[in-house]
């Protein structure tokens, strides 16, 4: 296996190396997140035209859709890291998987709440049990289950592996959420943004949306790097490299 993994990636798996790497990148990620976020918000709230049918209410889309996308994307990352953690027992993969869960849960929660606030003026109801909303709610419970299971173990690494297993069982829900609007009759509208081919959304609305999707990705990395660094300090607290950082011998 070591033959096809480049050396720098292998080195990155070592906790002190990743700690330094993440520490260097994190401020940049945060800065980019805030910058692209601000641009996206300006585009979405100020320059984008009002919708023909929905007026100004549709502007919730600029936070609802990126959050929904992130709720699925982060679960995918968590699943991939979980796979690495279970198959190769890589400590860093365990930490990335476990620390992604709360961020994913946060985005899922935001998706559900902003969706509800959008649904009330548009559909006349705060909630409906259609396929997409129900499966997104199930996604939230899956995240919470992973977090709960992880904390139920005395041994953190064993807990991470058990929770990783649960995460992989639940990964079937991710395609269900995504394709639910195609497979079933839902109240939720279908996709207007396509990866390949033209999207049916107005360009003035498209670019703030895409920019915000980018901003949330940068934010995820910023938050993840911070969490993983702290977790690595905790897991490796007996080791020399942590001692040096705690006593201030090496800069933070």
């Amino acid at each position, binding site marked *: 296996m070591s033959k096809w993994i480049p050396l720098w990636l292998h080195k990155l798996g070592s906790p002190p190396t990743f700690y330094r790497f993440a520490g260097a990148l994190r401020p940049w990620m945060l800065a980019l997140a805030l910058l692209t976020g601000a641009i996206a918000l300006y585009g979405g709230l100020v320059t984008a035209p009002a919708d023909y049918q929905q007026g100004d209410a549709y502007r919730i889309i600029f936070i609802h859709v990126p959050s929904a996308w992130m709720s699925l994307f982060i679960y995918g990352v968590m699943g991939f890291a979980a796979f690495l953690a279970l198959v190769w027992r890589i400590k860093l993969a365990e930490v990335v998987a476990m620390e992604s869960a*709360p961020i994913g849960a946060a985005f899922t929660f935001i998706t559900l709440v902003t969706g509800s606030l959008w649904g009330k003026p548009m559909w006349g109801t705060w909630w409906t049990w259609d396929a997409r909303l129900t499966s997104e709610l199930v996604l939230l419970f899956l995240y919470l289950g992973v977090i709960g299971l992880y904390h139920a173990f005395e041994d953190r690494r064993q807990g991470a592996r058990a929770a990783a297993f649960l995460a992989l069982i639940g990964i079937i829900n991710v395609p269900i959420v995504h394709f639910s609007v195609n497979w079933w009759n839902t109240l939720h509208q279908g996709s207007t943004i396509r990866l390949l081919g033209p999207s049916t959304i107005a360009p003035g609305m498209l670019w703030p949306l895409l920019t915000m999707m980018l901003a949330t990705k940068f934010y995820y990395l*910023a938050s993840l790097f911070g969490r993983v660094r702290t977790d690595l300090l905790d897991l490796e*607290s007996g080791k020399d490299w942590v001692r040096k950082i705690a*006593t201030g011998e090496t800069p933070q």
Partner: protein
Amino acid sequence: MNAGTLQHFFAMGGYAGYLWPAYAVFFIVLLADFVAPALRRRRLMHELRSRLARKAARQPRPAPTPTEPA
């Protein structure tokens, strides 16, 4: 930008009651997500430092040899 257009901006075509709480949730939840690990890190460093300090305080005393009378 005068007070009229600013007011128009905040009114959001009458949907302000839905739109602004939605944006507020977005910011508050992400802020909480960002701050909580920072607090944990601070607590952890504090614990680590005190643990190391305790260990260092124990080192200078020479260990008593086993054959010393009680």
